[in-house]
């Protein structure tokens, strides 16, 4: 009994360490990109184009992960690209979470016409194809960081709303809510003090998942050239550019892809780990 719970703890620990470590590394990269990058991410050098990474023949010593067709350093671009990725992940997902979770808790707890209005809104919203919706939005708002963040919020708040509404409803049916009500607590107080703490673990998991999704959405939008201007490196932009030369220089597309993959994976694993920390029963 004691041993098995310790085992679980250790597993959670390893997962948290790995994913947290990778995200911390990215975070530091965003802060210190100018110092640790071997090259200017925008500097083109046609004499150094399509250099392979450092362990292959024909490498050049400071291009650790090779260079792209314009001679720009892949590693430096990935490090600078982390800035946009993390910025979007943090701001867009937090805002999405606040809007979606608030509406979800309100709909789930108050029910009645509040639920009716919010749920119908979600249904209508989800009937739009999300990528098309995003492209349309950016066409209206114009490209840029703010537009991307707004697009992510507008597309994804429904995801939070749905799940949190269901979770709130199941918590509302618990006896502790009836007890609190019989004890004379006001409905708003019950929602905030009794139900919200029990929905919080779910919110945390969704939030971290959303961070991963936000990174992907940003990459998709840069892939179709709808992200911020092309003279600022983004992972999606790199993947999009690398696509054209994948046979001559696979490293241009593969390294940003791996970075993207690890980042999204880390966010979701961190979420799972945090959920176990937040949940009083599993703690």
């Amino acid at each position, binding site marked *: 009994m004691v041993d098995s719970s310790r085992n679980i703890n250790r597993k959670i620990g390893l997962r948290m360490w790995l994913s947290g470590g990778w995200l911390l590394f990215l975070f530091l990269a965003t802060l210190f990109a100018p110092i640790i990058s071997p090259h200017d991410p925008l500097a083109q050098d046609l004499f150094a184009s399509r250099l392979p990474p450092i362990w292959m023949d024909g490498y050049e010593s400071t291009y650790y992960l090779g260079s792209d067709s314009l001679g720009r350093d892949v590693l430096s671009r990935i490090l600078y690209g982390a800035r946009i990725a993390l910025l979007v992940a943090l701001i867009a997902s937090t805002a999405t979470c606040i809007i979606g979770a608030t509406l979800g808790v309100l709909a789930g707890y108050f029910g009645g016409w509040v639920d009716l209005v919010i749920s119908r809104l979600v249904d209508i919203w989800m009937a739009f194809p999300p990528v098309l919706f995003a492209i349309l939005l950016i066409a209206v708002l114009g490209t840029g960081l703010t537009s991307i963040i707004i697009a992510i919020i507008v597309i994804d708040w429904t995801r939070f709303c749905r799940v949190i509404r269901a979770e709130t409803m199941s918590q509302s049916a618990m006896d502790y809510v009836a007890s609190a009500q019989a004890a004379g607590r006001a409905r708003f107080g019950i929602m905030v003090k009794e139900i919200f703490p029990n929905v919080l673990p779910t919110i945390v998991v969704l939030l971290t998942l959303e961070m991963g999704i936000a990174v992907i959405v940003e990459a998709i939008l840069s892939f179709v050239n709808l992200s911020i201007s092309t003279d600022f490196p983004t992972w999606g932009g790199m993947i999009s550019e690398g696509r054209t030369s994948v046979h001559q220089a696979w490293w241009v597309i593969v390294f940003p892809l791996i970075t993207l993959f690890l980042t999204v994976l880390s966010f979701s694993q961190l979420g799972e780990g945090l959920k176990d920390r937040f949940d009083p*029963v599993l703690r």
Partner: protein
Amino acid sequence: MTAFLSIRNLSISLQNGERILRSVNMDLARGDVRGLVGESGAGKSMIGKAILGILPRALKIDEGEILFQGKNLLNLNPRELRKEIGANAALIPQDPLTALNPSHRIGRQITNRLVDILGWSKSDAVKRTYDLLDEVRIPDPKRVINSFPHELSGGMRQRILIASAFAAEPKLIIADEPTTALDVTVQKQIVSLIGEMQSRHGTTLLFVTHDLGVVSKVCQSLSVLFLGKVIEDTSVSLFFDNPSHPYSRALLTATPKYTDPNSDLIPVSEKILNSVKEEVLRLDREWSNGR
């Protein structure tokens, strides 16, 4: 003199018109302990919920009044009702596993109510909590106060819920099948604990249960409910000696006696069930004609 708690002609139905309670009448004097028995689905919990104002939203009250200390609870607005019920009544819920908030420590759950809702000082509330945990015989109250609900056994949690119900010294407590979710061995302790606490505090108690054995142990009077209709309202001694309604008689015969392990269980016969159902439906027709 008006009764302490008096339910007059209370009818509750679902949105689709299906009746849950059928013109229920019930009187409790101060300090009474009344059992409310019936099979599952008879609506016994709904009476308790109606008194406390925590009926599920799908139900609507058709008519009747609940007079509590002379005030009709059904005429109060939500804020007044909260104040009236919060200060004077409490609930011992059915399922101790879901009746405590899993996110809060035990101590906080008991004191919060006293501090936030009834305006006690923090130190008074903490002191009161220790006294109560002592009273419901919880060993090592210091550890329990700092525990989360999942760290305690079902019996412990039910003791805590009892302590919490008595915390503000309410005049009325509604025990909604407080032993149903518990182990048989713990049930007896919990029942006698509730009885003991009731007589010490002089609280009026409405004990919802389907266990006639529990009723004979704790209650002085009882109401038998069938399909949301009170079919017998009598004192416990009269009921066990000489039940007047055929359904009550059948119910008593159906209660297993553990003295003879080979005896068969005697279910309530179809004939009696059907005749009571017919009686109830006839009253239903009269009721809807009168409206």
